[in-house]
């Protein structure tokens, strides 16, 4: 306690013609259990009320507040200042369109991602309100939930070497989503149909295996495993596909 923290914060308001990208410095006395949510809110209310950033649940649940914290993407709300040095540099996430200062447009990116991977159960059945639900093994439900815990914060995208180089790469988040539906017995898509979506360089074959995604995921999703499993499955699909056309 008793530290004086120095914040270097990226500033730019694209809606203000007079604004140019630059860094502003703020100082704050550290308090007990201070998080970046508390710190940034304090800076906005006491020092610069135009400062833009995104918080929502402030409990690590909603994924709104991802930003680059001393060069590493993480959720600001659950980052305690005591785990950081005296000097803290905050930048917006790369790749996503900047709205202003630390705020980026993740909504548009993730909507497009969800459309691209068709993130819903594909089924030919229709819902019968009077019937009992279809049975499912509890272990399967828990396996699905494990991957469903993704909060679309964008950290894995920001930390991805491929995504930083090519805008059309879908990122680990999309791969994880596909893996989630492949586990789900309700989704009737075939392997060939999944292959159609991610069996490309924009998908699983674009992954360079750097695994920044796994390192930074604030929900600790098993992204490395999922990428490995998908690559194997999709690889086999590619081989089968070749074989089919060869005949």
């Amino acid at each position: 306690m008793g530290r004086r923290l120095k914040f270097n914060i990226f500033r730019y308001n694209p809606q203000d013609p007079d604004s140019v990208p630059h860094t502003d410095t703020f100082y704050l006395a550290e308090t007990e259990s201070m998080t970046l949510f508390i710190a940034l809110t304090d800076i906005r209310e006491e020092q610069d009320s135009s400062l833009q950033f995104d918080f929502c649940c402030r409990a690590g649940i909603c994924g709104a507040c991802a930003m680059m914290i001393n060069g590493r993407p993480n959720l600001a709300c659950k980052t305690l200042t005591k785990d950081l040095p005296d000097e803290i540099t905050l930048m917006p996430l790369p790749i996503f369109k900047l709205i202003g200062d630390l705020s980026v447009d993740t909504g548009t990116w993730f909507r497009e991602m969800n459309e691209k991977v068709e993130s819903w159960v594909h089924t030919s059945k229709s819902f019968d309100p009077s019937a009992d639900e279809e049975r499912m093994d509890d272990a399967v439900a828990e396996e699905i939930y494990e991957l469903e815990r993704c909060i679309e914060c964008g950290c894995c995208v920001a930390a991805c070497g491929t995504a930083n180089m090519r805008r059309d790469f879908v990122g680990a988040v999309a791969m994880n989503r596909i893996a989630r539906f492949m586990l789900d017995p309700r989704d009737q898509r075939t392997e060939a149909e999944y292959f159609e979506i991610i069996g490309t360089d924009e998908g699983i074959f674009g992954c360079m295996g750097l695994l920044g995604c796994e390192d930074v995921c604030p929900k600790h999703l098993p992204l490395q495993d999922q990428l490995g499993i998908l690559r194997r499955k999709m690889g086999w699909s590619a081989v089968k596909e070749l074989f089919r056309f060869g005949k």
Partner: protein
Amino acid sequence: METIFTDVLCIGAGLAGERVAIEAASAGFETICLSIVPPRRSHSSAAQGGMQAALGHSAMGEGDCPDVHFEDTVKGSDWGCDQEVARLFADRAPEAVREMAFWGLPWNRVVPGRSTYFKGGKQYEKVEATEKEGLITARDFGGTAKWRTCYTSDGTGHTLLYTMDNKVVELGVRVHDRVEAISLIHDGQTCSGAVARCLKTGKLRVYLAKATLIATGGYGRIYRETTNAVINDGGGAIIALDTEVVPLGNPEAIQFHPTGIVPTNILVTEGCRGDGGTLLDVNGQRFMHEYEPEKAELASRDVVSRWMTHHIRTGLGVKSPYGDHLWLDIRHLGEKHIKTKLREVEEICNNFLGIDPITQLIPVRPAQHYTMAGVRTNKDGAAYGLKGLFSAGEAACWDMHGLNRLGGNSLAETVVAGKIVGEKIVEFLKGYEVQYNTAIIRSGVIKQQERIERLVSGKNGNDNVYEIRSAMQDELMERVGIFRNGPDLQKAVENLQEIHERAKKVGLRSNGKGVNPELTLALKIQSMVRLALCTAYAALQRTESRGCHAREDFEARNDRDWWNRTLATWREGDDLPTLDYEPATQVVELPPGERGYGVCKIISCDGDVIGDGTS
């Protein structure tokens, strides 16, 4: 001015808003959702524990049915609810849970055979039936006769919201995220949409719609200590109240959740207690069973929050730099259970408290959690006062919760009400055509432009918006909290009236350009204080104790004089809301009686006094 036409405008894209949108879009109506955040960040995602529906598949839920769910809900509401709505809700809840399963939600399922569970710190055994294997299971929650709360670990809200938004994407429903409705367009009789501010550019935009829905969730952020997300600052309630004709139902009905963590007020789920967690005092002793021999830690939230506060007042709280608190103990549930069924709780404890709930106690105390209060609607979800305006979810006072909501009934309400109100909007829209009055639209837009200009230029004054919000929050925490009394409430009303005057003189310190966050709050602040005044003033008038509304000076529930619902409207120029009252329920399926938990002292409809005030 950019103007967008649609059949249905859903303001809010959390669970209720999106469920309505799905219903409308599926019936072929063009539907647009507005959301101040990307839809999957809506506060619905933070609901952890589960969703009540009487499926009765689990061993401890055997014999459950909508009748029992209905009874629990009415008792939970302390007979403040509309019983017709509670019945509609309980009957439709099982179908809604199954529909979500059909859309891909990974509900936890029945695992047959012997297993153990905890209640009041003691271990018991149950046997799940083989023939129920793989059906949706349930956990225990407060105020319920059966285990009825369906769940996915403690991420139920998250999985519901993701499944719902998946459906929205599948149907191609457009969600305009980072757009905030700042006023409704209406002529005093019919609502025709909203003026909205884009939170990507700061520009205003007009949405014209045949049917407009308010589904913006609760407004806990008028209190300082709240479990609510920072976005829950009353947007939807404000634009309704600003119409001068749409009333808020029961603004005094504000729920405190027993287990917000200290000091950040982040919620840890009722599932902790449902799964057998206990509350301990400074001596490490359980106490809830002494106050509530039957339900103990699992009495309804209002009751548990009151006993906790009472226990702290008797000096048995744990001292801390952030004030006194109590302990939540889930250690005995074991590592496996915590790491699978309560993993969000584990993460929250690790990240925000630096403690390990498997081996350590969690510091908790009651924090504001839910607004039973909301835009008053009829059973179809149609708002009082304006044709073409609807509301659903926490934003609405539909009113199945009365003066206290049961845990697990809010997620359930969003999905069930979303479905029902969606169906009713579809009925409403069939053959319905409108003519838009450009003069009204223009004047609505100009009014907002002028407000913004005055705030930016400082023409109204230069009061600091954050200080005003802070003063309002302190006032509510201090005098309109868990226990209330006449003198404090009177003082709160007077102080809030002063704060309301100051709110009129807010001016920005920054330049207001683009998505200026100070402007976003400044546009709301005056009406936020009005919401606070509605709460304080309605609480002052209600001279009884019912559900969450506990008057130290009127301890009895008074069915003779107060079996009713407050309706608060605000007329421009006034410094207090106008309060009207209507009967709590037209249909009485379950006559008023004892809840079976909480202090029992009732003045009956005939004026007889029942109970002596002890439990």
